[in-house]
């Protein structure tokens, strides 16, 4: 099997992107002070979380909706819920 990058793997998936609403909200201060930023980047297999110019950003469109980020985040460091009904990842294999 040829080696693949995360974006190549995500390109095989189907998404209904909710342009109007992100289902992830980041508290920059808490993410930094609690070490949550590092943990989110490590656990997210979809590469949703990245650090850009010292800020943690969430590319919510590629979220696979597992909830691992929410599970490791310090209380309040991120808000994470499911996308609105019908939006988000749309598994065709599962």
């Amino acid at each position, binding site marked *: *099997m040829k*080696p*693949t990058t*995360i974006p*190549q*793997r*995500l390109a*095989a*998936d189907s998404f*209904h992107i909710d342009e109007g609403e992100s289902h992830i909200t980041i508290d920059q201060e808490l993410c930094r002070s609690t070490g949550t930023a590092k*943990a989110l*980047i*490590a*656990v*997210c*297999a*979809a*590469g949703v979380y990245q650090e850009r110019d010292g800020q943690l950003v969430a590319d919510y469109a590629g979220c*696979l*909706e*597992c*909830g*691992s980020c*929410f*599970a*490791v985040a310090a209380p309040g460091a991120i808000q994470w*819920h*499911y*996308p*609105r*009904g*019908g939006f*988000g*990842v*749309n*598994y*065709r*294999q*599962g």
Partner: protein
Amino acid sequence: MTSSGGPAIDFDVAVVGAGPAGSVAAYRLAKAGLSVVQIERGVTPGSKNVSGGVLYGRVLDDLLPGYANEAPVERKITRHAAMLMTKDSAVALDYSSRLLAEPVNAVTVLRANFDPWLAAKAEEAGAFLMTGVRVDSLLTEPGLSGAPTVVGLRAGDDELRTRVVIAADGVNSFLGRSVGLTTKPPTNQLGIGIKAVVGLPRRAIEDRFALADDEGAAFALVGDCTLGVGGGGFLYTNTESLSLGVVLRLDDLLRSGRGAAEIFDHLCEHPMLAPYLRDGEILEYGCHLIAEGGYAMVGQLAMNGMLVAGEAAGLTINSGLVVRGMDLAIGSGIAAADAAAEAIAKGDTSQSGLAGYRRRLEDSFVLQDMRTYARAPQFFERPELYGAYGELAASILQSTYSFDGTPRKHLARMARQALKTSSIKLRRLLRDAVAGVRSL
């Protein structure tokens, strides 16, 4: 209870989630003649679901006889292997049997195909299925004893009033947490599952895994496939694809300093798996959080007006050789439906009126098996399982099979020598062996 004088009831029962737990519960309630709404946030059932893919479906066969011939299942598993991996070796326990084919013991499923079939069974039985709808919150009222009573749910601007809500809303169960019925588990009780579905021609799969026709194989992988992080890997055969993945315990993943995707890459490129995966093409990439706490994680399962089922209730088992979730979900869906029907018939849907749920789970394989493997999660916290033991086994077998001209030694002597160079001491090995026998 709340129906007398209160606002009109829209449905006897609302089932949240159209996975196996939810669809089986909705099916059984509709069959019993109750009015049931089933609400799923995905555009179709299964479109939000990922599992490794092996369903130990005898419980489903009792409910829907002959399901394996009718449902869109992938392959009937006739070969189970467990493989201890190092970076360049694999030591395996490999069991194949015709006895696993008849009656069908386990099948692989792809949830985007399987879940719609099961949800359609509930619809045919009379349940009203709503898809593409996210339940935002529960409607609660103060109950007689002061404890809140769930009286329905809210989705967007719509409110539905119910006698019982069955929350089969998955491992993250926001509904269960919102009323304190379930809690967010600690990171040592959760694993992230990362999986690729790898497309391959049917014939190539059968040849590589030594399978006839619609037979399938399920490989459990331990050791270097996760780069030593607590958890394991899996390689399952579907009809025209493989399900390849890892499960990584979150606490150990964070401790390792590695990224989840980096470990998945390592699995995909592992030389011991390469012959199975050759020329495969990734058709889909998915993730799913897995409750790994076992029986210790199972808390309260009922409150006034609500039950929690399937993964939302923490019902999963990892015995090392076998990983289960869907069969426990189905078992809990049956129990939840029967308990809800009984409570509604009695006119008491309070927590005590719904106590039949726990009783049914205790009487069935669901909580009995959860109890049997209660000590397994603790056993699997031993870091040696993911590194040193695989190295030790491989080194003993390497000395057994490798003829380099040096004089032969008896197996026992070789094992002793291998143990000497290993980080594991004999006393430790014996202690872990005893713990393993007791926990698994």
